[in-house]
């Protein structure tokens, strides 16, 4: 095993896949000469040259369109969108083109595109550089949406995403880029569509995504001191959703809290809650409680008040346990 930062785990995944497969190329704003706004593509230009590490103009629509057209012809583009907020700039290419190309042309094309992009607050980046908008894309058939929280998962999932023949929206978290974790020296993969139980417990299931996995784990430690044994599931992939892992955990705990950094209303938590209500409401001993951001934009100066925290998870768990 070795210690590595989240952002360097991304670089390693890209490097390994580019070394293995000549069809893999990286494209985006400042991914080459500058090595990426968050340095995720650092060193790739020097190793793989200008044809495979392409700096583009500030043109998100052109970036995604280019990736769609190249993927249809058999290449495997990894496009970087500098902040996930900028996905809104190229929604047509993502939603109407990338997601639908295979279906609308009757299976004529594979669409092996990875769109890497960082989400989330914590850097005081303001309302247009801090959102979590994964639910927008999870609502679109044809896309896969991946959202890893740890260095181990980000590397293993990025490698799986690059080898996947479908478009994958790969949502990193800029507040996590600097965190360190252990990964194997040898090659490994993390499958898309498989959640991970990050902490086992018997009293309550906490399903969390991205940065909130850490808040959930912190909450679980605090709750343990009070005799409440929480199980923490890191969703890792938003779509396709790993229903089995959630249901299996609920068979045991019968209580559910869902925690995500995105605004609570109309989020992934609502989908999970609805799914559980539809299919296993008889197993529940308490109402489902969601933890998420308030229904406001992400303020530059009030981030601390905005972001959901471990304390919010603790309160939510107590509500369902004490019900």
């Amino acid at each position: 095993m070795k210690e590595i930062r989240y952002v360097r785990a991304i670089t390693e995944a890209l490097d390994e896949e580019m070394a293995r497969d000549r069809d893999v190329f990286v494209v985006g704003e400042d991914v080459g000469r500058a090595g990426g706004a968050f340095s995720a593509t650092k060193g790739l230009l020097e190793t793989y040259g200008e044809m495979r590490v392409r700096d583009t103009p500030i043109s998100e629509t052109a970036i995604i369109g280019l990736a769609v057209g190249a993927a249809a012809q058999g290449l495997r583009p990894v496009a970087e969108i500098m902040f996930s907020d900028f996905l809104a700039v190229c929604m047509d290419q993502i939603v109407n083109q990338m997601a639908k190309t295979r279906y609308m042309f009757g299976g004529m094309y594979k669409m092996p595109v990875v769109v890497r992009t960082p989400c989330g607050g914590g850097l005081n980046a303001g309302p247009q550089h801090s959102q979590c908008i994964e639910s927008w894309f999870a609502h679109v058939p044809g896309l896969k949406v991946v959202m890893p929280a740890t260095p181990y998962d980000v590397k293993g999932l990025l490698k799986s995403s690059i080898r996947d023949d479908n478009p994958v929206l790969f949502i990193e978290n800029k507040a996590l880029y600097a965190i360190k974790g252990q990964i194997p020296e040898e090659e490994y993969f993390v499958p898309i569509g498989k959640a991970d139980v990050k902490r086992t417990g018997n009293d309550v299931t906490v399903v969390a995504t991205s940065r909130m996995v850490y808040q959930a784990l912190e909450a679980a430690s605090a709750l343990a001191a009070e005799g409440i044994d929480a199980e923490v599931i890191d969703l890792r992939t938003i779509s396709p959703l790993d229903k089995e892992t959630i249901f299996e955990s609920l068979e045991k705990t019968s209580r559910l809290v869902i925690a995500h950094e995105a605004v609570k209303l109309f989020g992934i938590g609502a989908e999970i809650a609805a799914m559980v209500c539809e299919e296993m409401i008889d197993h529940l001993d308490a109402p489902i409680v969601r933890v998420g951001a308030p229904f406001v934009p992400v303020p530059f100066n009030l981030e601390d008040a905005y972001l959901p925290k471990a304390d919010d998870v603790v309160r939510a768990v107590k509500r369902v346990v004490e019900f």
Partner: protein
Amino acid sequence: MLDKEHLLEILYLLVKIRRVEERLVDLFSQGKIPGFIHVSIGQEAVSAGVCSCLGAEDFIFTTHRGHGQALAKGIDLKRFMAEIYGRKDGFCKGKGGSMHIASREAGVAGSNGIVGAGLPISLGAAFSSIYRGEKNVTVCFFGDGASNQGAFHESLNLAAMWDLPIVFCCENNGWAQFSPQKVYMKLDNISRRADSYGMAGVTVDGNDVLKVREEAEKAVERARRGEGPTLLECKTHRWLGHYVGDAQKYRPPTEIQEVKQFDPIIRYENFLLESGHIGREYLDSLEARVNSEIEEAIGFAERSPVVGAEELFCDVYA
């Protein structure tokens, strides 16, 4: 000057596109085709002129008004018709319909129902060619209306920066849906926009198929030589409405009549007759040949199985 074989091939494309679309209008009016369709009657010289200088290995991207472009590129008429009927033997198993006809064999790489959205995708096809060191060229068709989309600007700028082997072919029929060019654009010639991206731009009479072919050939060869993209504007006329069934109440009836005097097919036929390349009887036999191909394709489409609900979940993911 093109040899006789090529001249007659162009005539065949023109007549085929016109007759296919006339039949589509009939079939649609009879309720045999679901949804809505957009035809390019009056604009055939653009598709025929441009595609006649491409090979099967070259890519084209077509639009919602893309029947002519796909047919000129050599797409199989039977499967084309089956797609428009929404049947199983269509190129997309009927899931795309009239606006989404593509064929790998014919190099019809994509087709789009979103105005201007094909341009960014054409960048990727062209990039795949230079990435692999191949010499094929990409032609991206779009209309005058699409040139006001942001995607147009982003695509032309990037293509110019990277010297991508693309011909951006603006089929300017003077109408963006229900609005004439003068109400949404200060310019007369859209090709002037090329200058702002540092690429070649040219405007040609889009009703003169040989002029279209001549300028398209220059642009295609420039792209093939690695000298970058061209914005080729072909000025033509849309005879019918935005969609079949559009009563065109926004358009003076006199104008609809006036534009028919620019019929690119009659013009080209007259040229071939006057220059002695063909006689009247050739035109009659060509009409008969095209007509029989169309009837055969309609028969094929109508015999093709209706797609069952089991297909609903196929091909969402690979």
